[in-house]
């Protein structure tokens, strides 16, 4: 028997309440039918006796308190899945946007997923080469990792993400891989940019897109990454694909979360964001990983634009506490015309130490990377000294560091948008530049490695 409840008792923002409802469970999906036959969906977010509170994904605009009918479906929000999602485009709640029919599901999955048992997790060790020196050498991406790009408005994060997608490959190239692209509150242009780029590189057949544009309802924005990750998990742990998930822009997602939280009347925490934002973000980011006994993997590259380039803003801050490192883009480098503007010092890949070096990449990888960090950090010191006393007054060694810094930025960090460097090229280039410095300055490298790779005079 299909039960429908007529009318609502309260409406606020995207939240509605119904009275006199029984037998409804928490997190259940509801269908709301408007007078004209339009159908919207909602989710149960609170039960208080016979009062049930729903969030409506498509928003409450146009809802008439008295003339709507609500039906509870008896199940949580699920996503229809089958292998044919590859190459398709959906909206934030999983409905087709490409004019094709609905997915004929092999399986329906709860979009909230469930936590991977820490015992079943396989520690990620195989590295993904992006062909970008500043990432491969010093912040290597590992399969199964979550490595966000911290950017700012107007910087070239989209180009970088697209380049990563185009060039990413592992040591073993025979494996099947797929891309799940999730746009949250981005402009149409951005979505078009990615679509075009996937098309040109011929990857479109392996891409699933979930698009929630800047003008789409915010509730759908909260669902979009969950749909995307559910699809990714399905492809990875059911069909054995290695899935790279691009989530952009996490800042819009968090702002949607804030808007939603305040419309529920929750007590705000820092900068008005809800106090559960850490747990909420973790429930997305932690869905990356590898599992014992499964062939596939989920690797995440979330992109977020730091409001006002502030890395201590709650969005990058909480993200950084959850993800396994970060790639930080620098406005300074961007303004110098350097692409990709990867700031080496604050960038970090936490899993890199276990997926590089002998047996994984090349024996000198770890030493080289440590030394690049240390030497580049000395460049910063020398530059700040130079800004006070002038470059001419610097000691010989400091002058050398300033020169090293210039060349590192011009030759190592800078590369073409279609330039795909092999790891060999990247590492050799690193040694070539380090060899500008006296051998005694390279305190992070063992003598054995120096004997083999150092090309300087002393």
């Amino acid at each position, binding site marked *: 028997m299909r039960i429908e409840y007529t009318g609502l008792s309260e409406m606020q923002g995207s939240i509605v309440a119904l009275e006199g409802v*029984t*037998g409804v*469970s*928490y*997190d259940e999906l509801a269908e709301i039918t408007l007078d004209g036959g339009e159908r919207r969906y909602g989710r149960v977010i609170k*039960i*208080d*006796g016979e009062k049930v509170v729903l969030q409506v994904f498509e928003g409450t605009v146009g809802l008439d308190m008295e003339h709507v009918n609500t039906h509870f479906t008896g199940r*949580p929000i699920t996503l229809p899945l089958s292998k044919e999602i590859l190459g398709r485009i959906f909206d934030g709640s999983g409905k087709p946007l490409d004019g094709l029919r609905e997915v004929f599901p092999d399986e329906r999955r*709860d979009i909230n*997923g*469930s*936590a*991977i*048992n*820490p*015992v*079943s*997790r*396989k*520690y990620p060790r195989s590295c993904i080469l992006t062909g970008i020196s500043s990432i491969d050498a010093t912040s290597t991406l590992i399969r199964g990792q979550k490595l966000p790009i911290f950017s700012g408005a107007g910087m070239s994060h989209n180009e970088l993400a697209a380049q990563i997608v185009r060039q990413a490959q592992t040591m073993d190239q025979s494996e099947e891989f797929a891309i799940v692209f999730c746009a949250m509150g981005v402009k149409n242009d951005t979505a078009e940019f990615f679509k075009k780029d996937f098309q040109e590189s011929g990857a479109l057949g392996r891409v699933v897109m979930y698009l929630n544009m800047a003008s789409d309802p915010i509730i759908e924005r909260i669902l979009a990454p969950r749909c995307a990750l559910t699809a990714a998990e399905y492809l990875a*742990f059911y069909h054995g694909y290695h899935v790279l998930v691009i989530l952009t822009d996490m800042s819009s997602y968090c702002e949607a979360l804030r808007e939603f939280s305040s419309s529920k009347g*929750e*007590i705000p*925490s*820092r900068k008005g964001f809800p*106090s*559960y934002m*850490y*747990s909420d973000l*973790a*429930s997305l980011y*932690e869905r990356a*990983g590898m599992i*014992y*006994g499964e062939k596939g993997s989920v690797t995440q590259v979330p992109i977020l634009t730091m409001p006002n380039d502030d890395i*201590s803003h*709650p969005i990058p*801050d909480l993200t*950084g*506490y*959850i993800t*396994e*490192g970060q790639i930080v883009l620098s406005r300074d480098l961007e303004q110098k015309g350097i692409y990709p503007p990867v700031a080496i*010092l*604050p960038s970090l890949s*936490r899993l890199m130490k276990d997926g590089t070096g002998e047996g994984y990449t090349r024996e000198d990888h*770890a030493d080289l990377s*440590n030394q690049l*960090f*240390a030497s580049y*950090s000395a460049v910063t010191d020398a530059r*700040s*000294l130079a800004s006070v*006393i002038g470059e001419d007054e*610097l*000691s010989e060694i400091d002058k050398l560091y300033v020169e090293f810094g210039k060349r590192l930025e011009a030759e190592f960090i800078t590369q073409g948008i279609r330039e795909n460097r092999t790891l060999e090229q990247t590492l050799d280039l690193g040694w070539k530049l380090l060899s500008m410095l006296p051998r*005694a300055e390279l*305190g*992070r490298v063992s003598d054995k490695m120096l004997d083999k790779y150092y090309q300087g005079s002393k």
Partner: protein
Amino acid sequence: METNNYYIYGVNGPVITVRGGRSLPMMSLVYVGNVRIPGEVVSASGNTTIVQVYEDSSGLSKDQPVFPTDKPMSVLLGPGMLSNIYDGIARPLRRISEMAGSFIAKGITLPALDMEKLWDVKLDVKEGMDASGGMVFARTQESDAIEHRSMVPPDLQGKFTEVKPDGQYKVTDVLAYIVDERGKKYPLTLAQEWPIRRSRPCAKRLPITRPLVTGQRVIDTLFPVGKGGCAAIPGPFGAGKTMVQHQLAKWSDADIIVYLGCGERGNEMTQVLDEFAELKDPLTGHPLMERTILIANTSNMPVAAREASIYTGMTIAEYYRDMGYHVALMADSTSRWAEALREISGRLEEMPAEESFPAYLPSRLAGFYERAGYMETLSGLEGSVTVIGAVSPQGGDFSEPVTQNTKRFIRTFWALDRSLAYARHFPAINWTTSYSEYFTDIKGWYEDNFGSGFTRMRQQIIDILGKESSLMEIVKLIGSDVLPDDQKLIIETAKVLRQGYLQQNAFHKTDTYMSPANQMVMLEVILYLYDEAKKLTTKSIPLNQLVDTGIFSALYRMKFDLGEGQTKDYFIKLVDDSISKVIARNE
């Protein structure tokens, strides 16, 4: 469970409103809904009880049944906990994965211990002997290094009776009974329950006189933590909190490690599982995993269980302490625990205090850290629980409430520094803002074990580092070339201390752990060089000549050479040679 009329009235995330009878006892365990999700009573008024549940509440609906128990939330303690991994309410994750697969399913209730395994048990007691609370009545070898001592529950007294002979028993087998004055019989088994929020009693607190030796130079030398003490590691992300915790879990000289992953990354727990199984304890030679208990409540696991997890960890730590062991509890991270507290408090619509944390945050933190200590147990043994809590301040800003309140209850503070981490100076413990109040308490131990003169040398390097940081203010403005030689010497020596001594490579084969003896050698050699070089400067021989001999950079690598077996004499000779070379040049 008897029949009852309790039912779900409302659901708001992990907070469930229960009605249907008189309100339930505070903090008692209840099972909620058809799938029987465990939960705890957090408040009650009239006929309404509020329960926080330890699993995702989706699927719960009004009128589903609620099953109260009159027990508080407890953990089953007994042999078999070592090398195991549990979730925040002590459910064994390995067996859950065998039952439910790679993803965590709902409503699985499993005991913490393996109920079927047979243990070789030796009984310490005989028929008719007096029994008192905390007394050890049975022993079993839990791992190669650790003997599990089963104790009489603290509140029992009487005489032993019906004592079984030595033999093989399961954890639930009754090994003996205790008859109290009134003739009531209590069974004793290898396993016993203890409520997680109540600290286990002991005879008395003893003063802290020994450090937890960690093999990490900056910690052992500059900022030690006493056995039974509390330390906090605050730091922004990427500063290496987890790395420090891992290093301490690996190399500190505790008998038992309880490693608590509280609201952190899943892969980090996997890493501990993988690595600890392969590594060997430098003191006993046994695999590290055999002395370790892991509690993993990762950031995406239910938030209420995260709140409970630190108490679960602490109760297990106290249990092993009562057997006479030194236990170190690593909590990574207490900020995530505080956030769980905040999240639940928000759902309960409590009045928020600073940064919307609940007003009771400080008292909860105090309650946790005060369970640490060096104790005389009820059975007269000595044991300790040392707590090392990571703090993840938002934006790396140490003025936020969790860091500030934690500082009131700990005595060792390892402040991690983002700029050190960017320069890849690890461990990124800032030597000017960190402190240890324990050093004066344990000074005697250092003089006896590290060697006499340790206190003086420690003070000397603190002075050098302190002078350097004020000199750096000048250097930043005018460069180091213009400084007089004695100040240049400070800078050169501090550089050796920073790069050679304070920096320690956790991934290096030998540098990851340094014995106290070698730490002492390093200090002696570096300060010997300093003293000798100072003599040169008083003879107005330019310091650059000494720097050019390469002796300072040779000492950067001393830690690696010591690890490969070089001796103190070799380095002293190295210093002597360079000094005499310089003197010869100036004659």
